[in-house]
């Protein structure tokens, strides 16, 4: 169970927060995450 939890936590995802404190999470494979994650990968490769 611990391994499964850890694996779930390590999945790529995007979390969006509104001004009122609400949060929406989009997991790897969702259309929303697929739009943002490539940009994140690009930025993480900056040296």
């Amino acid at each position, binding site marked *: 169970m611990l391994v499964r939890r850890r694996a779930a*936590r*390590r999945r*790529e*995802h*995007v*979390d*969006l*927060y*509104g*001004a009122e404190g609400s949060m*929406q999470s*989009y997991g790897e494979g969702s259309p*929303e995450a697929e*739009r*943002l*994650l490539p*940009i*994140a*990968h*690009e*930025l*993480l490769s*900056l*040296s």
Partner: protein
Amino acid sequence: MLARMDAAQAIGDLTEISPQVLHVVAVGADGSVLGSNLEDEVAAGRLADGAARLVEAAEAMRPGVQQLEAATLDGSVFVVLDAGRTIAATTTPEPTVGLVFYDLKTCLRSIDQPVEPAPKSRAPRKKAGDPAA
């Protein structure tokens, strides 16, 4: 006269207290780079541009987004918007999300924040019976 905190100093303080944070760029309301810890100006500009693209894509999905985290297995990208300005940072994998958001907001707000200069030392009060008074 009021002094203003230097962006480079604020970012230096941020990376010192938050070792999870790797690269940072602060962007003004006009889109200009206020400061970054990336030595290469082109790289700083790319981080600023990427942050703008993340916000634009996020806005299309969720209008009114104020902050975001894009988490990958290689690390995360955080973007925080505040009063028209933006701060973006890359971090090590599995960062402490709440702490990073807090530190980024604090950093962004400290840039341009008027800082009162240290009060000048007053001359010692003269004693009532002092003949020089």
